[in-house]
Each structure stands twice: as C-alpha cells, then as structure tokens.
C-alpha cells in the first residue's frame, strides 16, 4: 500500500466486529470498500489475535467472510481526522495517506474506563481488556499472580483467558452488588448462548474467588505494583499480586465522529434506524452508538453496511435482531452501573492526568474542564484527555468538549500530506 491518495465508495474505520460486518455487507453488495484500522490485526480489541490464532469460531467466520468479500484492508493506518468534507487524513508507517470516501462507516469501538485511585499509575496496572490484548501479543503472564477488579462482563472473560495462558488469578472483584448481578443472570436465561458462555467461563475459573460489591482502593509498590488493597465498603484488605487488571466499563471512542461533526446523544453517536449519523453520508455502528457487546456490534455493522450500499430492505430485516441485542446491552449497563464509591477513590495527591501529572486536588479547584485544562494542561498531553477526560466526567461531572485534530498523535509530516502530494519538491 504505497499510494498516498486512495478512493473508495465505502470506507469503514475500525476492524472490530462492527467494522468487519459493515465492510463485508458493503463489499458483498458491490461497493468498492476499504476497511481501515490502526493496528496490524483484524478483529478489533475484542477479537484481537483471531487472524493468527483463531480461537473464537464466530470471529474466525467473520474474518474468513471478510477475506472472501474482497474489500481492501488498510491496516496499520491511523485515521487522524477529516482533511476535507470527503477525505480522511491517515498515517501509515510508510507515510501519510488520504482516503476519499462517498459513504463513511465509523466503527471505532470503545476504550476502557479508568478511575484513579492511589497507586493506579504504578507499572503493573492495566485495563483488563488491555492486559488481554498485550498477553495475546507476547506479554508474559504465565505464572504471574493477577487480581482483576472494576466492573463488567469483561472481568470474567479476561480472567478465563489469562488463566488459560498460565496466569494465576488471585481474585476477581466486581464493584456491582450481587443482587443486581443475580437479576441480570436470571435475565440471561433468555440468551442460551450467553448462558453457555458464562458457564464455560465459570468452569475455567473454578477455584478463583469471584466477589461482588468489592472494589480497589489502593495499589502498593515502589516502582512496580506489589499488592492491591480492596474494600467491600465495611473493611479493607490487601492482596499480593504481580499485575492488576482494573477497568470500570467502556467509553466510546467518539473523537473521530466529533471531528467529523457528528452529533452525540449523551456520550454516544446519535444514529437513525439505518445507523446514519447527523452528518450526511456518515454512519456509525457498534460501541460508538451504545455499549452492547460484539453481537450488537455485528448486527449494527451489517445494517450500516447494507444501508450504505442502498440495500434498505435487507437492512430492515435485521432491525428486530438489533433491537433484541440493544435490550441486552441496556440490561448489561443497568446491571453493571457504577456505585458512587468508585468515583471517590482518588486522594488529594493522586494523579488524575497521567500525561501531565495533574493531581486530583489541583483539578478539583477549577470550575470546569476547559479552565482546568488551560491552567494545568490536564487532558492536553499525548493521550489528549482520553484517560483523564473520561475519568473527569465521572469524578467531577465535567462534560466533553470539541476535539482538536489530530485524533491521535501523528508525525508532523503526516499533517502536511496535501502539500506533499499536490506540489512536488518541499525542500528548496
């Protein structure tokens, strides 16, 4: 892929379940389609590693279907933002790319929500999904003692996966109370596949303590994590470990949609029944439009891909299935809703913005996100507030504001791509 300027009818951003399904649907219906992803892998975060070592049959089926669909794959291609109304600016290790689209499907997925507590910046702290991804790509976990904490179904799934890789899972600690999880589990009876999945996980994780209503209040260690302190609201105790995988659910990656001008509802991209956003020709699918998991993402992606190919009737036939998965997502969200205590774990001196080392008490002294940003640089470091901005929403109730390009840090030369292609020699 050495061309710098590329043109497609349909461009899909993000190669997770939603993006794969969207790209398949568009390409199978005759659209010249490209699937763009930041990583060298297909499958997004949830199915990461499927390409090389297929373990999940559903993921393997979709990867195979994508191969047959003859869409172009632009991997290791980081989308930086819009260059103009119909062109994305992107960066590949070999140089800048400009990707023209007629219809654009955004499937940028979600990241994990991290909430600051004393010690959360020590090396050895990971997001559960993050540790799983790293482990799939060679991070040594065999023989390591790992505590999982935070919230969401990912904790169990990751715990099971890590154990299969030889890790010793010390405990799994879910902040949501048992009562809520029981009612959610009862609801699962309507979802035999999910129930079977849960049962398999339970078997893999036999012997590992799984606690509800427990959350981390501190991580100990000098320059490396050694132990984590947990609480159930009445008492606190410490558990020795090598790694802590802690995340409090998912946050949609709405930076690119915002840069394109898409309107949000609360924190998610607003879409119509065809997955179309408020911007003409731009669709969104998957976690960007609501946290619902891989199955919701697949059906949303397929609807978006069909709609973008003019196949409304076929898309319409999938809407009932989408409604069901969205209900499942809503139940999931309610079951794992965050308790108030986890928004109050940071101590005065706890770093909230990791890029600029801005501490809780300093941030707290400002009236809003923009004032705090300008005066302390919180949220203005390399991650552009992806970690602390999401945390500040929970900690202080501060809303997101508009994003600044590029969507991810980029080489300076990548930002002058138009010039490089339009006018030959740059050097005098």
């Amino acid at each position: 892929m050495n061309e710098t300027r590329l043109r497609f009818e349909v461009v899909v951003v993000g190669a997770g379940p939603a993006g794969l399904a969207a790209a398949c649907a568009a390409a199978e219906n005759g659209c010249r389609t490209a699937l763009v992803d930041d990583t060298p892998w297909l499958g997004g975060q949830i199915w990461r590693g499927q390409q090389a070592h297929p373990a999940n049959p559903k993921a393997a089926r979709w990867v195979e279907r994508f191969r047959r669909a003859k869409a172009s794959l632009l991997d290791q291609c980081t989308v930086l933002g819009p260059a103009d109304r119909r062109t994305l600016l992107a960066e590949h290790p070999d140089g800048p790319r400009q990707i023209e689209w007629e219809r654009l499907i955004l499937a940028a997925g979600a990241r994990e929500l991290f909430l600051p507590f004393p010690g959360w910046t020590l090396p050895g702290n990971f997001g559960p999904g993050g540790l799983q991804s790293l482990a799939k790509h060679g991070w040594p976990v065999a023989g390591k003692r790992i505590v999982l904490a935070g919230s969401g179904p990912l904790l169990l799934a990751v715990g099971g996966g890590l154990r299969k890789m030889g890790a010793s899972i010390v405990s799994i600690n879910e902040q949501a109370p048992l009562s809520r999880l029981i009612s959610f589990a009862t609801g699962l009876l309507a979802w035999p596949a999910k129930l079977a999945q849960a049962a398999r996980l339970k078997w893999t994780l036999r012997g590992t303590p799984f606690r509800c209503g427990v959350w981390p209040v501190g991580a100990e260690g000098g320059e490396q994590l050694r132990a984590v302190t947990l609480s159930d609201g009445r008492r606190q105790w410490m558990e020795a470990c090598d790694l802590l995988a802690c995340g409090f659910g998912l946050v949609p990656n709405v930076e690119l949609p915002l840069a394109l001008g898409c309107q949000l509802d609360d924190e998610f991209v607003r879409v119509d029944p065809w997955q179309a956003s408020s911007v003409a020709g731009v669709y969104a699918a998957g976690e960007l439009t609501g946290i619902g998991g891989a199955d919701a993402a697949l059906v949303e992606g397929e609807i978006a891909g069909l709609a973008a190919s003019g196949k409304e009737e076929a898309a319409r036939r999938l809407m009932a299935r989408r409604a069901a998965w969205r209900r499942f997502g809503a139940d999931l969200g309610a079951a794992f809703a965050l308790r108030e205590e986890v928004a109050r774990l940071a101590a005065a001196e706890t770093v909230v913005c990791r890029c600029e080392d801005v501490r809780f008490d300093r941030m707290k002294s400002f009236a809003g996100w923009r004032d705090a940003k300008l005066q302390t640089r919180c949220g203005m470091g390399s991650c552009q507030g992806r970690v602390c901005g999401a945390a500040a929403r929970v900690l202080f109730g501060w809303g997101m504001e508009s994003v600044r390009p590029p969507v991810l840090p980029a080489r300076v030369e990548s930002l002058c791509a138009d010039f490089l292609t339009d006018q030959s020699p740059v050097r005098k």
Partner: protein
Amino acid sequence: MSQSFDIIIVGAGIVGAACAAECAAAGLKTLVLDRGIVGGGTTAAGMGHIVAMDDSEAQFALTEYSRRLWLQLRDQLSADVEYELCGTLWVAADDAEMAEARRKEKYYTERKARVEILDGHGLRRAEPNLRPGLAGGLRVLDDSVVYPPCAARFLMDKALRHGAEFRAGAAVRALLPDGGVEMADGSRIGAGRSVNATGPWSPELMPGLPVRKRKGHLVITDRYPGFVHHQIVELGYLKSAHSVSKDSVAFNIQPRQTGQMLIGSSRQFDAEGAEVDHEILSRMLARAMEYLPSLGKLSATRVWTGHRAATPDKLPLIGPSLAHNRIWLASGHEGLGITTSLGTGRLLADLVLGRNTEIPAQPYAPARFADGSVANG
C-alpha cells in the same frame, strides 16, 4: 443608577487582566467581566512569545517597553507561567535576508536593545537542527516565552489581590455612554468608565471599530527537550506578517519549558470559523520542515486555531473611544498581545489617572482613526 465601580474591564484575556492588575494596583475599584473564563479566548490560542518588533517606531516602543516590564516582573511570576528567557533567533536564508538581519541589528542596537549577528556557522552551532546552507541570523537576547493562560491568570490574581472583582460567564450586551455596562440578561452595572478588551470580538460591542479577525493555526509537539533552543523565526516572516491582505504562512517555532514545541504561523483574513484549514496547515508545516528537516518525524499532538485582533496600521487601540469619553479601548493587539499586554495595562492606567506615560501614548489612541473612513464607538 449608582456608580459602583471606577472601571469595568470587559474581557479577561491577558490584555484585560493586565489592565485590571494596573488599575486595581493604582487603587481603582475595578470589575472584570468575561463571557467565558480567564485567558480562554485569543490568549489561550496564542504562542506566548515576548518579542521586540520593529515594524514601526511606535510598535518598537510599545513592544520594547512591554518586554522591559516582563523582565521586571520575572522574579514574581509563578512557576506555571513558565517564563523562559530563550531569546529570538531571526533566520536569514540567503544574502538578501542577511542584509535585512544587518539592518535589524543596526536598528535594535541604536535603540539599546541587545542583539548579535550570527554567520552560517554560528547559526548551526546555536541550532544544530536547522538545515545546512542558511546564511546566518540575528539573535535578540532579551526576548522570552511565557505560557499565556497561566500568565493571564497570574495577572488576574494580582488584580484580585488589589481588590478587583472578577465575574466569569458574565456576557456584556452593551457599553453605556455613562461608563456602565448592560449585561446580556438586561441588568446594568454602574461605573465611571468601561474598557473594551475583547480583542477580535471588540466590534461586537462597538460596531464599525476597525478591528478584523485574523486567523492563525498552531501545532504542538510531544516533548523533545533541546530540539530547538530559541524562538526561531524566519526573516521572511516580516513579509508574511506585514502583508495585510493575503493568506500567508511563515516559519516560527517555539521551545516550551516542557520540551514541547509550538509550530506556527499562519495568517488569514475573512476566516471566521475555528476549523483547521488543511491547505494552510500543510503549507505552514512544509515551511517549518524546510528549515528543520528532522521536524517531520516528530510527533504532533494537537492543532488548533485562534483569531488575532488586527487593526489597519498594526498598532493597538489604547485609550478613550471616539464616541464617548467614558468608553475606552484596550484592543487590536494582533499577534503581539501577550508581549504588549503589560505595556497596554500600564499606559491605560496612566491615562485613566492622568499620570505621565513612560512612552508616548498618542500612536495607540483610537482617535487616530477619526478621519471619517471608519466609524467608531
């Protein structure tokens, strides 16, 4: 309506904050109003270069005076203002620009500003990442850099310590002939005098004011300490910055105390929106890479835009407006507002109090546009 303040300053950018600090320190009962936050407008978008500029005698007088005030303030500045006496390096690409460097050297030296000429080798030693083959340059020693939002906050805090009052999120609808202001909600606040310090938005309160928005783009990089040591500006910048009509770009890079670098600059009229213009951005960065070839591989974390308040003669508006002697101006600082904020604040307070000014204030008087070509006030 009772008169509750001596002076109301509208706009809490660095110019408004500097005016407030001087007025409050002189004992005036001062109120600052801003529809947003301290330093959230043009101040937040600016580079923060404290620089002596010689486009005109009046420009040199105000920038040099202000630079002196910054030097005097230096030891009191809080650490987050990040005052760094890095100097400016004006780069000459060829012999023609070298001649310009020598003209500048003479001009600054005659006015007792410290400068030194560098030849090609001297330039390479001073900034090894500049491309080989440049003719040389001029180093201006007492120029410096600050982080503008914290500098504005520092000045506002100084005003508050002297008894000034500040209201954020307070939008003003009109400046009243009696010196008071009318708020967006219709309420009124009385004062002996008001000051329009709303920069590029000044004409909203004074239709017809000869202030135009001039858009600029900036890029900030990740941390690369020591990549450049001075604020480096191409001498071609003068052509770019001084052309008052066309869109232009020029190489201008600034090392921050954090190790980050700010890359500029661009100038565009009639571009009201905040969106990034990729063509201008591309030209701007390509220009920077001509001078610093290895810059291209460094990581850029953010691009943003802002609007300067440009006047026809590139000088600010400081003093009473034409229409009403109780409605004053501290606006139109174009790209030099961070530098000239301190000089503006001091001049404005001196004029309000009838004190002698240290430099002649006449060149900045809004009355200079009284020729009928532009309505005012």
